[in-house]
């Protein structure tokens, strides 16, 4: 075990920037606190103007974006990418298995009761086979870097991971208000995400459909991620619909349009399983489409992500994912997990309760950082509450030793730059043939000093995240002559301009007029 040396600083070693970060550090120094403060103001007005917001409670607010970008080197990234793809393959196989033959349970790789007691294990989805065998069209695997700088998986998000719109907007915002930082780096572009997503969605339609009609299904404008739903619909050029715009009839999903009903072939739904279909799931739901699951079962609509994926990102299943990787792929996990205690095991439960000040306790089916208890910073009352909850419902909770994950220099309230904890959510899109991992992803920053909670719902911020191209920095000699190869065939006709309205003589005489001038 390593010594508890403190968190890993991604930019600095002994107060000096790593070689990969020198250019960035120098640029930040040149700008200085005043320059950065001015840019911060411009960033805020840009975010406000563009309405790049998330909704918290009743209020829309901009997602705070730090001006210091996070750099990930090509070699670091290739591990992350390979690890994410590997994990997804195993999780896809696990879901196919759980909603099919259940061999993984018969082989006792994972306790049957753990799966069947998951709140996200939907029997309604059993035997429902997606046409291209993809259930996790979009995923966000949350990673942290431990004290040694090793990337570890913190949790899987396989239902409705959100945040990708902020990844794309952060890049654009940073390039708009702080172009200087881009000058000495080659950053891998991320613009193709919406295209990749659309391809994956189209691929999940019934094979017999030539030109699938894809829609994005949102709960509505009051949802915290509505901005993202609209963003994705816009960039994919597809309709953004609400449940009330759709209905099922004759084994098809239809949308109501001004020119009559139109068939919907694929639904990228951003509403939770429970609300998706009042016929089969939560009967009180007014956000879903009654009969949707019947249409899906008939194979006439693709639903992304699939219903019931939550069983694979249940935090109680998480400790078993490395075993699933070995079981399905016969490989060792590329990205290790964080140590996790199984609270349904009496011995482990006792250990956790005894050492709860150094643990983080999370609800097994939670997301968004709601309900978690941070041992080191929790109040007496919170700790007692957590112990009580764990004893009452051991299956409902997991515990992990608090990992003081890595930090990255961040501009804080007083304008100075100081380290703040960051995580990373790489987004991956599976079209059934390939998994595309968006280079970078969402880096979330815990803004209060020392805080380890990065969730935007808990007031976390974000950073533009750069994966550098293989050639690290650009050597760009200034050519004396611009190569004209590309511009040579540019056929630019003449510019027409207004003929001069005055010749010099007119101008002179106009100005000479004494009468009526101001000089008399």
């Amino acid at each position, binding site marked *: 075990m390593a010594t508890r040396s403190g968190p890993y600083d991604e930019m600095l070693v002994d107060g000096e920037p790593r070689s990969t970060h020198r250019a960035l550090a120098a640029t930040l120094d040149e700008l200085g606190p005043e320059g950065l403060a001015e840019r911060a103001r411009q960033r805020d007005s840009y975010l406000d103007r563009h309405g790049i917001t998330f909704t918290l409670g009743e209020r829309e607010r901009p997602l705070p974006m730090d001006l210091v970008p996070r750099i990930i080197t090509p070699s670091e990234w290739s591990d992350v990418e390979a690890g994410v793809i590997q994990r997804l393959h195993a999780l896809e196989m696990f879901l196919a298995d759980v909603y099919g033959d259940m061999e993984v349970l018969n082989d006792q790789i994972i306790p049957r009761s753990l799966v069947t007691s998951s709140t996200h294990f939907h029997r309604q989805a059993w035997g429902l086979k997606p046409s291209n065998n993809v259930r996790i069209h979009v995923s966000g695997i949350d990673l942290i870097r431990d004290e040694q700088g090793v990337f570890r998986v913190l949790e899987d998000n396989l239902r409705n991971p959100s945040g990708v719109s902020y990844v794309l907007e952060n890049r654009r915002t940073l*390039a708009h208000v702080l172009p200087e930082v881009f000058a000495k780096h080659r950053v891998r572009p991320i613009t193709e995400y919406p295209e990749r997503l659309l391809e994956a969605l189209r691929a999940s339609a019934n094979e017999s459909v030539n030109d699938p009609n894809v829609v994005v299904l949102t709960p509505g404008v009051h949802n915290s991620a509505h901005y993202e739903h609209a963003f994705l619909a816009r960039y994919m050029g597809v309709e953004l619909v609400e449940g009330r715009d759709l209905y099922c009839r004759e084994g098809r999903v239809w949308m109501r349009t001004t020119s009559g009903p139109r068939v919907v072939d694929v639904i990228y739904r951003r509403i939770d399983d429970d609300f998706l279909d009042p016929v089969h799931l939560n009967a009180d739901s007014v956000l879903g489409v009654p009969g949707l699951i019947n249409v899906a079962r008939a194979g006439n609509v693709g639903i992304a992500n699939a219903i019931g994926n939550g069983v694979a990102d249940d935090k109680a299943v998480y400790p078993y994912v490395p075993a699933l990787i070995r079981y399905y792929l016969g490989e060792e996990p590329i990205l290790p997990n964080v140590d996790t205690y199984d609270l349904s095991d009496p011995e482990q439960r006792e250990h956790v309760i005894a050492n709860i000040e150094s643990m983080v306790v999370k609800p097994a089916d939670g997301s968004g950082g709601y309900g978690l208890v941070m041992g080191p910073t929790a109040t007496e009352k919170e700790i007692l509450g957590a112990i009580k909850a764990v004893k009452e419902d051991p299956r409902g909770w997991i515990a992990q030793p608090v990992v003081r994950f890595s930090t990255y220099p961040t501009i804080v309230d007083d304008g100075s730059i100081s380290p703040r904890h960051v995580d990373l959510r790489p987004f991956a899109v599976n079209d059934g043939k390939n998994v595309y991992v968006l280079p970078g992803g969402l880096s979330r920053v815990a803004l209060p000093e020392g805080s380890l909670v990065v969730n935007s719902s808990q007031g976390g911020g974000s950073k533009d995240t750069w994966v550098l191209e293989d050639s690290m920095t650009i050597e760009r000699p200034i*050519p004396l002559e611009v190569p004209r190869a590309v511009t040579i065939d540019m056929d630019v006709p003449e510019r*027409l301009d207004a003929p001069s309205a005055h010749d010099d003589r007119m101008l002179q005489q106009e100005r000479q007029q004494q009468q009526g001038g101001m000089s008399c």
Partner: protein
Amino acid sequence: MLSRIAESFFWLGRYIERAEATTRILGEHYQLIVEDQSISEPMACAVLLDALSLPHIGVEDGLLLVRSVVGESGLPATITGAVGAGRDNARAVRDSLSTDTFEALNAAHLFLSRGLTHSSSPGVGLHRILERLLVVNGVIDWTMPRDEAYYFMKLGRNIERIDMMGRLLAMRHEQLWPNSGPVAVLRAAGALSAFLRKSGPFQGADVRKFLVLDETFPRSMRMCAADAELAVRALESLGVGDGGMLLREVGMLRSSLEYTTSDDPVEINRLIADARQAAIRASNQANKAFFRQHGTIVWSH
């Protein structure tokens, strides 16, 4: 209406349009240079300067590019120059302009004459310019009576729009920046949402086709030609005509774009080149027929 006044309105329309389009194109081009460094910076600068008919001696990075395209008064191919030239024409017809129009244009002119502040990034400054120009166009549209003056302004605006769209497309962003180019072109034309609603994801050829032939997007060459034709017809109905010469010019352009039977890239490129030449001919014809008629007696001493 006096020929001189008509001419000023025509050029007012052209210059405001030129300033706005140039600002948009520069903003997106600059952002592209920042975000996607796959093209050498001097090269990326030269491409834009060529397209705008500006000299590119010594312009080797994005910042210098912004500086030279924002430019200075007296160079009507630059933003500052175009706004200045627009303002000169507005001054000549100040009595027939709404005060709001002149104020908005003057505000844009003053903003530019102060230069871009150094404490902000170019993108931020360009956006502020663009906002002011949008106000100018908005005020013109809401306050100008639909009379002769208006239609000359509208004719000028649409002729310039065709020309600027041609310049934007001449740069071939989608070839230079296969990844991010098509989106940048659409943004520069203010067409991103319109395009996406219609077509979904990007393919270079489709973007060009959309910006040339689309029948719903107000800045497509086809719609600009149709708008120019409407302006000429409106002038004719007001008794301002040249025996159909100008109408023939814009009408032929509109119909060639409307009734083209092929949409392969080669044909699209031919249409772009033809449209730009037609815009020049139309401008010259308007000049000959209405502004600087033959037979005008000029006193030369």
